[in-house]
Each structure stands twice: as C-alpha cells, then as structure tokens.
C-alpha cells in the first residue's frame, strides 16, 4: 500500500475513532433511564394534574433531550454526518426544518373536523 493511500485509509479510521466508546453508550443509556424516571414522576405529582404548561413544557423539554441523545449518540448523527457539517447543506436543512415546524403548527392550530 502506498503512503498516500495508507493516509486515506487511516483518515477513515480516524473518523471512526470519533464514535462513542462502549462506556459512553452506557452513560447515554443511564441518562435516558434517569430522564424517563423523572418524566414519569413529574407526570404523577399532583402539581401537574391539570395538564397545563407546568406539565407540558418540562415534558416536552425532557422528550427533546431524549430524542437528541438517541439520534445523536446511538444513531451516530452527531458523529458521521458530514452532510450536516457543510454550511450550505446545514442551512438548507435548518431552513426546511424551521419552515416545516411553522407550517405544521399553523395547520394544526387551524384544523377543524366534524365527527358527529
């Protein structure tokens, strides 16, 4: 193997080295388990019985954190998405995501249907 091609192959190995270690996976799992326990506890306490913002907002935040942990660490999204590291693609992706969320909530807020 030539020095140049070896450099290329090692460059790829270097990328792989950025994946989490087994210990880091366990840490992510423990974090997910703790957040799930807190979610259940938060939903069960009498303070949040009315289903208001005190219940919904913390639950949404905790759900988002779990989402990011699984997608980022377990699905390697944080580590091997060169597509998202390029500024051009990132801005397209981010713009589309923001637009999609805005359209979703507008449609959701104005949606009406009749069942009876």
């Amino acid at each position: 193997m030539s020095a140049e091609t070896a450099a290329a192959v090692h460059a790829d190995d270097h990328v792989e080295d950025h994946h989490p270690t087994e210990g880091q996976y366990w840490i992510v799992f423990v974090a997910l388990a703790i957040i799930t326990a807190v979610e259940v506890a938060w939903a069960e306490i009498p303070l949040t019985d009315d289903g208001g913002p005190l219940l919904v907002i913390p639950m949404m935040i905790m759900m988002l954190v779990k989402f990011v942990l699984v997608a980022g660490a377990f699905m390697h999204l944080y580590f091997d998405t060169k597509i998202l590291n390029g500024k051009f693609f990132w801005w397209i992706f981010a713009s589309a995501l923001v637009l999609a969320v805005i359209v979703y909530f507008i449609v959701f807020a104005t949606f009406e249907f009749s069942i009876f």
Partner: protein
Amino acid sequence: MTWMPTTITITKSRSLMADVAIPTDDAGVVHADDHHEEHHTSLGISNMKLAMWLFLGSEVLLFGALISTYLLSVARFNQERAEGNPLVTGPGTELFDIPFTSASSFILLMSSLTMVLAHQAIHHGDVKNSRIWLGATASLGSLFLAGQVYEFTVFYREGLGFTTNLFGSAFFTLTGFHGVHVTGGILMLVSLLVLSFQGKLNQDRNETVELVGLYWHFVDIVWVLIFTIVYLVV
C-alpha cells in the same frame, strides 16, 4: 475477489476521495469494487446509509401524521365527553397504566443500548459478542411487543375496542403501527442472527448491522415521543 485495474490518485488533503477507505494491493493499486459496503459518497455517508435515512424521513412523515391525528382526535373526544355528548361512549385515557408502560419504555430504551453494543462488537470483529447483543436486542423487542399485546388485551376487556370511540381508533392505530414497526425490526434482527450463524456477517459487513440499528433506534425514538405525548401529557 475481483481486482479492478483502476488506479485512482489520492491526495492527503481532505478532498472527497481522501475520506474514502479504498482497498489496495501491495503496489498501491486501488481496487474500487472489492469492498462493496465501504462505498462512500461525497455526502460523507454510504449510499445504503443515505437510503436508510431517506426511508426514515418518510417514516417521520407517517408517524407525524399519526401522532397529529391522535392529538386532534383525543382533544375532540375529551371535549365532547366533558360536554356530556351522549354519542361519546366507552373508556378513554383513564385506562392507561403508567407504571406498566414506563417499564415497557425502559425495556425499549435498553434494547437501543444492546443494539449499539451489537454494532460496536461487529465493528471490532467480535462476532460472538455481536450475536449475544443482537439476540438480546431481539429478546427485549419481543418483550416490549408482548407488553403491548397484554395492554391491548386489557383495554379490550375493559370495553375499549378499535371502533368503540374516537380515542380507541386513534390510540390503536398509532400504537399498533408502532408495534408493527417493532415486529419488522425483530424480523430484521433475527435475519442478522441467521446470517451471523451462517458465517455471512463479519466485520466487513458491519454496515448492515448499523443500518438495522438505525431503523431500531428510530423505532425507539418514535416510542419516546408516543410515551411522552400519548401516555404522560395528553
């Protein structure tokens, strides 16, 4: 092994080709077709992985629609019931058994851990441990599925069927679709185990395990959303 007589010039810069793991012989000749799973694109991920991400994108649309439908349906169901509409019959969200569902959620989260450990093992050429972790993932997935079947059975005995009311239709459709996806994941995991025992799943094909892992983690993420939105918030 087919050696293609193609020589590709590779520089040390971080160009498109520099990140590609390309098998070569001792003379430095690049054999582009040797390692079909290691093909990468200019986007930084292999075509197979990109295809899986696109597929998962379409799944996001499916579950986004199902979760939205559930939210709208349950809001309407609760409103009509609170107003005393005589057409609204049957039980609603009071049937939920949160401790039981929390345990199910924990089981599915644990299966995500065993899935990444399976990929980690095969990535490092540890076939034996990859089999153990794949088996554990399939078992935990089956346990989750058994819990869902139990939950459905309890709900049915309590008087909530698919056509009982709007809540029942929305709930069974959403969680049922998720259950079908878990079943599909278990079949993929069992297929990987069979391939492994046939000697067809080794370090060179670790991306196959990673692709199934992506699907499995997606199913887990969907449950994270369902558990919080359906069981804890609404």
